[in-house]
């Protein structure tokens, strides 16, 4: 176990905005907000829109830098998405922000009909993905990847850290068509700079090779997987990590290549319910190609999750570094 985990973690509150950064972890502040401001300098068509969550999606930085390109739509997510569609039809490049629960659950039909059916250039960037708030099911977006994967024309991104968010912003702007991107906001962990990482839309990246286990992961679970790999290395378990930030379209070629190497347990880890997310996408890709490694999922249960402090909940639902390491060791027997 890592030294950070050896001491009892200081429990944070169950407040809506809980930091996902561990004590002492390197972080970067508001990577999305800063990246969008930078992008807007080069692209005059970029506008920012939100539904009363500018401060909580780091869009306030854009609002301050480009007030004439910022639209506060009020606490009205359906309007937010419809208006984003109309603006896109008039040639603007809207970045619409809210919480992932409200985009995926409340405004789904508006995104489906007003944005996706017409293949409009709207980027939907949503905070509090998966289990990144202790505020309970009202704010825990545990089904968003399943919902947006199922939507035709939609590109779906689940970035891992601050570096990836910074790089993904111009990349999704350059992509023509609707994009749903999960957002980590506030002080966001920074780790991929140590892996010489470069985000490419639609590409999976092998961050670390390993003989015994291949963890295929997205979002913050890639951070966890890298921590698990370090922890298990001390136990002589060699864990590889394949990071898959683009959930749709899926980089099937790379997944088949890495998962097809014999002798490895394949574990898909995601900050999402076991249903309809990366795990099922990878399983379908593998089985369809006749690639059948030993396969396991680390993901959130098909349940309404508890409210509480994030470290407690991550431990309870098996997506903390410690719980994940223990689970994988158990599978290895």
């Amino acid at each position, binding site marked *: 176990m890592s030294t950070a985990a050896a001491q009892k973690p200081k429990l944070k509150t169950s407040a809506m905005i809980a930091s996902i950064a561990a004590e002492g972890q390197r972080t970067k502040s508001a990577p999305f907000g800063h990246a969008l401001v930078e992008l807007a300098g080069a692209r005059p068509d970029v*506008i920012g829109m939100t539904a009363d969550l500018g401060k909580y999606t780091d869009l306030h930085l854009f609002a301050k830098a480009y007030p004439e390109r910022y*639209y506060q*739509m*009020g606490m*009205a997510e*359906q*309007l937010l*998405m*419809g*208006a*984003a*569609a*109309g*603006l*896109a*039809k*008039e*040639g*603007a490049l*809207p970045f619409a922000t809210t919480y992932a629960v409200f985009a995926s659950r409340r405004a789904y*039909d*508006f995104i*489906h*009909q*007003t944005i996706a*059916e*017409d*293949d409009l250039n709207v980027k939907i960037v949503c905070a509090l993905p998966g289990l990144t708030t202790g505020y309970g099911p009202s704010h825990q977006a545990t089904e968003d990847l399943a919902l947006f994967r199922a939507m035709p024309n939609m590109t779906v991104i689940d970035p891992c850290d601050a570096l990836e968010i910074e790089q993904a912003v111009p990349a999704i702007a350059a992509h023509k068509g609707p994009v749903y991107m999960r957002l980590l906001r506030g002080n966001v962990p920074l780790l991929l700079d140590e892996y010489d990482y470069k985000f490419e839309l639609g590409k999976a990246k092998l961050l670390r090779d390993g003989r015994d286990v291949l963890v295929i992961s997205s979002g913050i679970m890639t951070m966890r997987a890298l921590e698990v790999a370090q922890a298990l290395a001390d136990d002589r378990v060699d864990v590889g990590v394949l990071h898959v930030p683009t959930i749709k379209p899926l980089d099937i070629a790379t997944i088949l290549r890495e998962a097809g190497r014999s002798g490895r347990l394949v574990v898909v880890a995601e900050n999402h319910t076991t249903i309809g997310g990366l795990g099922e996408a990878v399983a379908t890709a593998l089985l369809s190609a006749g690639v059948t490694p030993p396969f396991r999922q680390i993901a959130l249960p098909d349940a309404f999750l508890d409210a509480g402090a994030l470290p407690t909940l991550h431990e309870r639902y098996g997506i903390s570094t410690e719980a994940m390491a223990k689970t994988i060791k158990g599978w290895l027997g």
Partner: protein
Amino acid sequence: MDSSVTATHAHLAERAYHIRRNALLMGEVQGQGYVGQALDIADVLAVAYFHAMDYRPDDPEWDGRDRFLLSNGHYAIALYAALIEAGIVPQEELETYGSDDSRLPMSGMASYTPGMEMSGGSLGQGLTIAVGHALGLKRKGSKSFVYTLFSDGELDEGAVWEALMSAAHWQLDNMIAIVDINNQQADGPSSQVMAFEPLVDKMEAFGWFTQRIDGNDLAAVIRAFDAAREHPGRQPRMIIADTRMGCGVPFLEAREKNHFIRVDAHEWQLALEALDAGRTA
């Protein structure tokens, strides 16, 4: 009426007749369609497309056009009838209505039809998109208007009220919304499904310049569109149009009111004849 007004009125009455006729012909092709709504809204569409709006039939994407958003996608047969009359959709395509591979599906979709600005069908969305169009047009310094047609039943949808509030907040004086009050929705009279009156008071309270008219009185429709365009306030503009399902075909108008009027196979020809009789009357 002076002679120019009389001429305008006669011209638009002829256009409305053609829109009704196109809709009946399409209804006959499929044996069904929302012809009751098409007949009720034909006067509004005639004024929109042949009096108020600026567009280029051979270039439906022309950036200087006035936008027309059909929020109630099931009224597609009515809008197709107008788009055909306007020359945006070729007359020959009329007979493809609702058929496989047609550009005229039974519910209106942006990706199918020239001149169709949005994918309707899921009700209560049009005004939200219109807000975005109106904001976008202002960004571009465009003088174009954004027209949105929606139905009284759509007033049940919360997003309509989100958009109504937002349009006033943003002072979208380039938005003109028309709500078709035919008092028919899927489960019965709209006013009984969910009471919506007093609608003028509500719209005015929401900050809209509001007019209520008989939507089948062509002269009133013309005046309302003119006033909506010319209103000097920095407000969005609402036209509440009370209409009659089946208007123009007396035996359909008299039929027991339904959201989806039943027209038997032999009745299409009778309906066309009744429409013609009204034209020459």
